[in-house]
């Protein structure tokens, strides 16, 4: 024993030697620390999940499609955005609904938006028959098709809600930012998602940001969601899809 001890002492004075005790001590220390970290993370994850209970998020898909966006309708839409009345929300069909708790409920909607780009009817003719299927009461209007540059023929530009557009496989609802909720702020975030032919989200571009943490919340939720790829004539293709997320508060 003494011999081993002395040799160990010599080795450790040289600098690079691990005695049996040192190794044991390091392993014990690392395991204790990792245990503490795991405990901490488990607790923090648990804490984050029940933060949402003060309001509920209602998801409504508004797929109003007309092939061309005339100017007057665009004005109506802007008007509609400013008044998130109860009646208007009732008209829509909720997809996800959680338990209401408090005075406010937050409604986060995604819908199609109108584009400022040139309309090209010929490139995506599918939405045209769809326009009649949707209820006419809603005045939200959006373009469906864009003039696709010839160089990027393998990538279509579309938006969520279109036929052939990418869709959510698993939809992560964005959290309503707490400060925005307290201040009664509402907002609209428009994102452009680059989704490849396998349904992988490659990039997120913020087309229309909003303050009060809306943009961050929307991007975070989109990154946690999974998608099915866009398809054209039954073939899966990569796409750039516009996604509008509305953060709407409504008083119960």
């Amino acid at each position, binding site marked *: *024993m*003494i011999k081993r*001890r002395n040799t160990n*002492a010599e080795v*450790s004075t040289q600098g690079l030697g691990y*005695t049996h*005790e*040192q190794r*044991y*001590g*390091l392993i*014990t*220390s*690392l395991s*204790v*620390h990792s245990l503490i970290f795991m405990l901490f993370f488990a607790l923090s994850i648990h804490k984050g999940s029940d933060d949402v209970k003060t309001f509920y998020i209602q998801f409504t898909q508004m797929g109003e499609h007309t092939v061309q966006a005339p100017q007057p309708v665009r004005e109506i839409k802007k008007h509609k955005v400013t008044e998130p009345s109860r009646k208007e929300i009732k008209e829509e069909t909720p997809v996800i609904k959680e338990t209401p708790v408090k005075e406010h409920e937050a409604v986060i909607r995604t819908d199609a938006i109108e584009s400022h780009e040139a309309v090209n009817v010929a490139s995506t003719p599918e939405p045209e028959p769809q326009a009649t299927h949707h209820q006419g009461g809603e005045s939200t209007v959006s373009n469906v098709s864009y003039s696709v540059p010839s160089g990027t023929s393998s990538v279509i530009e579309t938006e969520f809600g279109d036929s052939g557009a990418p869709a959510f496989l698993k939809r992560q609802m964005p959290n309503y930012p707490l*400060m925005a909720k307290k201040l009664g702020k509402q907002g609209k975030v428009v994102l452009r998602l680059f989704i490849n032919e396998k349904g992988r989200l490659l990039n997120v571009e913020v087309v229309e940001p909003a303050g009060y943490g809306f943009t961050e919340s929307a991007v975070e939720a989109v990154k946690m969601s999974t998608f099915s790829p866009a398809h054209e004539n039954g073939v899966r293709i990569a796409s750039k899809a516009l996604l509008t997320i509305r953060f709407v508060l409504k008083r119960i």
Partner: protein
Amino acid sequence: MEWLSATVDYGIIGLLVVMSIIAVSIAVERLLVYRNIRLGDFNDKKSLEIELTKKLHIIATIGSNAPYIGLLGTVLGIMLTFYTIGKEGLIDTSKIMTGLALALKATAIGLVVAIPSITFYNFLLRKVKVLIAQWETGNGRKRI
């Protein structure tokens, strides 16, 4: 300034975590050494003392310095928060308070590292004293 605050934050906390790991590993190693040591193998009291007190100073240093390092992280965090307020003119209290709370986190972690380290140090020092006393009683006072 965001990246700098993140660097300060994670740098300080990472340093404290590394210090904590080192302190705990040395404490465990020392405990094992003290448990397995054979007092009869040592002829001289001073050589026994050298062997026993080896590396204890590292635990003592970590225990005494961890709060200071945590405090440094807090000071830097508060500095950055104030700098951001001054630069952007934030009136948003929640952001300020979040910055200050995150800054205080560094001090908390420093204390969490320091308390076990000091405890280990005192505990091990006591063990050393006991072992030296045992050696003395075993070998008789004449050989000192």
